[in-house]
C-alpha cells in the first residue's frame, strides 16, 4: 500500500470548499470514501451500517470544515471523527441489548431465546466469506491497541506517519506495534 503524495493536497481542497466551491468536497469524498467505509465496516461489522455511518461522518466533517486546523492532516481528523462516530454506534447497540430469556406462555417459567451465534451467516458460509470471518475473529482477539492499528493501516489505509499523528505516537513505535500486531495476527490465523 504505497502512498503517493496527493494532488491537490487535502488542505487545498478544504480551502477551496471554504472559499465557496462546495463541489470540491466531492473530490474529498471520492478520495476517502472506500477507505472510510472499509475502516468503519471493521469497527461496526455491518457493511450497510458502515456506509450509512460513513455518509454521516462526511456530513459532520463538512459542517465543521471551518474548524479544521490545517497544522494537522485532514486524513487524521477524518478518521478521528469516524472512530468517534463508530464508538457512538457501538455504545447505542449495547444499550439496545435485550434479555436472552422470555417468560413462558403459562407465565410459570422462562425459556432462553434462540439467537444466531454471531458466527458466519448462511451466506458467509461460502469459502471466501468464511476466510473473512476467520480474519475478523482473529482481529477481534488482538489487544485493543493492536486491533486499532491494524484497522487504520489495512482498512483505513493510513500511512505510518498519519497513524503516528492520529494516535500521538512516535513513528518508530507505530512501526514496532504494527509489526507485533501482524505477527500476533499471523499466529492466530495459523492456529485455525
Amino acid at each position, binding site marked *: 500500500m504505497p502512498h503517493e503524495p496527493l494532488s491537490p493536497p487535502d488542505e487545498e481542497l478544504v480551502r477551496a470548499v471554504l472559499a465557496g466551491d462546495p463541489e470540491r468536497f466531492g473530490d474529498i469524498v471520492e478520495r476517502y470514501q*472506500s477507505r472510510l467505509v472499509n475502516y468503519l465496516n471493521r469497527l461496526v461489522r455491518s457493511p450497510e451500517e458502515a*456506509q450509512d455511518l460513513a455518509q454521516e461522518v462526511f456530513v459532520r466533517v463538512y*459542517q465543521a470544515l471551518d474548524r479544521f486546523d490545517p497544522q494537522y492532516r485532514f486524513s487524521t481528523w477524518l478518521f478521528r471523527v469516524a472512530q468517534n462516530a463508530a464508538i457512538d454506534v457501538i455504545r447505542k447497540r449495547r444499550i439496545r441489548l435485550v434479555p436472552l430469556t422470555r417468560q413462558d406462555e403459562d407465565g410459570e417459567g422462562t425459556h432462553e431465546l434462540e439467537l444466531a451465534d454471531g458466527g458466519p451467516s448462511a451466506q458467509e458460509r461460502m469459502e471466501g466469506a468464511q476466510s*473473512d470471518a476467520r480474519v475478523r475473529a482473529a482481529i477481534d482477539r488482538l489487544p485493543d491497541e493492536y486491533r486499532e492499528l491494524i484497522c487504520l493501516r*489495512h482498512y483505513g489505509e493510513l500511512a*505510518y506517519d498519519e497513524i503516528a499523528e492520529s494516535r500521538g505516537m512516535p513513528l518508530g513505535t507505530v*512501526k514496532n506495534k504494527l509489526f507485533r500486531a501482524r505477527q500476533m495476527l499471523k499466529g492466530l490465523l495459523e492456529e485455525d
Partner: protein
Amino acid sequence: MDHQTWREWLDLDVDGALGDEERRRLAGHLAGCTECAAERRRLEALAARLAAGRIALRPDFKASVMAALPPARWEARSRRAWRLPAVLLAGLALGAALLAGAAAADPAPLAGPLSALSALGEVFAAAIAAGTGMASASWRGIGSAVGEWLAASRLHQGAALLLLVSLNLLAVRLIRRRRRPAAVPADRRAS
C-alpha cells in the same frame, strides 16, 4: 544483522513501507535465506487475506453524500455569499452614477423621474433628519454631523438611500439558506 531486524524489514517491505536501500539489502538476504523467504510468503498471504475482506461501495455513495450535505454555518461567511450583494451594489452604484451624469448634462429630459426621485429623497431626508434628531440627544455631535451631511445635497441623500437598499439586499441574501434534499435519515443526522 540479526533475524529479528530482517523480519521487521520484511514486515515493512510487504506493507510497502521499506526504503529503497533497505529493500536492496533485504533482497540480497532473501536470496540466501530460505527461512526469511518462507516468512515473506506468510506475510504476503496475511496481507492478501486482510485485503480480501474489503467491501465494495454503493454505486451512488458519493452522490448521496453530496445530496445529503446540509447548509453549513460557515457557508454564509464564504465569498460566494457575498458575490450577489456585491454585484447588486455595483449595479446600483453604476445606475446612480449614470443618472447623476445624465441629470448634470441635460436636466430637462429627466425632469420627471428626477422630481419623483427628489420627492422620495425629501421624504427620506425628513425621516433621517427625525431619526438623527432623536439620536442627537445622546450622540449630539455625530447626529448633527450626519444630519448636516444629508441636508447638504440630494447626492448625499441618494447615496444614503443606495446604502440602505444594499444593506437590505445583503441581509436578505444572508438570511436565505440554500436547501438540498436530505438523504440521511433524520435520526442519523449529525448533532
